[in-house]
């Protein structure tokens, strides 16, 4: 969208709320209602990639030396990565904002 959602007036919306620009989902960050975030400890990580494989939001991505990190713009904090991590290298940490 051309501007943030909370700045649109009712008469600025297209008929039926049609969105004419393609690919604008890219602008929309969906991770803001998370209560816990995963923290990766690379001293324990075996680089097995199970966190990357299991993440239902594809928010886990590969970093340098085949380790992994989480994109917090999209992570919902479900904890599946921490649950599946065999060596216990991922900890879910309470987030405060």
């Amino acid at each position, binding site marked *: 969208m051309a501007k943030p*959602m909370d700045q649109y007036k009712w*008469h600025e*919306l297209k*008929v039926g*709320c049609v*969105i004419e620009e*393609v690919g604008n989902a890219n602008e929309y960050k969906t991770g803001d209602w998370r209560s816990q975030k995963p923290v990766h400890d690379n001293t324990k990580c075996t680089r097995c990639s199970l966190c990357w494989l299991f993440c239902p939001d594809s928010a886990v991505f590969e970093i340098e030396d085949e380790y992994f990190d989480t994109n917090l713009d999209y992570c919902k904090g479900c904890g599946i990565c921490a649950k599946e991590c065999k060596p216990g290298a991922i900890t879910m940490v309470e987030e405060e904002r």
Partner: protein
Amino acid sequence: MTTKKGIEVSIAVADAAKLARVEVVAAYPITPQTHIVEHLSEIVANGELEAKYINVESEHSAMSACCGASAAGARTFTSTSAQGLELMHEILFIASGMRLPIVMATVNRALSSPLSIWGDQSDVMAARDTGWIMLFCENGQECVDTTIMAFKIAEDRRVLLPVMVNLDGFSLSHVIEPIVLPSQEDVDAFLPPYSPLYTLHPDKPVTMGAYAMPELYTEAKFAQETAIQNSKVVVDEILEEFGKKSGRPYKAVETYNNDGNDFAFIALGSICENIKTCIDDLKSEGREAGLIQLRLFRPFPEDDFVKAIQGKKRLAIIERAMPGGASYGPLYNEIATLIHTHGLNIVAEDYICGLGGRDVQPEELKNVFATSPQKGKNITVIGVRE
């Protein structure tokens, strides 16, 4: 030229949809609507109407398919009744929220349980706040004319909303009436091909029916509400244009013998003909009563209606639906609100009648004129055996 011929109203409604050159019909048969969609399927199958007829497994799917077809830019028609309307209820909101100009003939029928296939208006009253424009027909000619006008109203760029054409089950749908079917040339001149504002087309992709966060939902619904409230002007314009071209004038609010007396019946649909008979009978006995008939129910034609009830002392609201636990019936509630907000000193009485196909005789309506409800509450169920 156009001549009157005797035709079953359901068949005439299907012929009206054909004259409107509908491009997609998706429907599921249900009594008493069946003859409309049956006839459409015949004329699509035999090549008389160049349209896609989508066979579906339920009314929920019928309205969903109509939404898809309309979003793709097709002139879309369907028809249903009673349980069928309730089964598509969820999708009715989607059609109006997405501003899809679908036209639906709703053949009004009682809701189960107890099971009834016969006419009343409890089905449409349960769907009255779905954001559809709603028109009610009194006779077969109106059903044909309203179906044709409905497309023009729905597709107007200032409107872009679905339109429901209500006709009473059996007492309209299954009677044979002398009806003028307009010529194809006249309908073509009145109703140009549908030119959609947005379509689902791979050449120019758009998103329709997207998710709205709390930051946007209120604005989206406000825009939709503004559209239906503002559609009244367009409805008036199109009714007037059709009246001029066909010689059959229509108004959002019709009145009959309504000037210079202090009592009026208020009603929707085919029962207005019985009420007119009752009014004529009363007149021959030297008594005067008026009728205020709502041809347009959504958006509610507030200004026209308030003008029509000026000078009245007593209104009898005749409605074919139970309140369902409300203090009064749905039509009464609308009217009582307007009497209150306009500061009018009028006694309004609620009369529930004609449920599940029960006949309402002019004699019973004359009793309404002669007697007021008792027991401290202004609501009466006509003819109930106590």
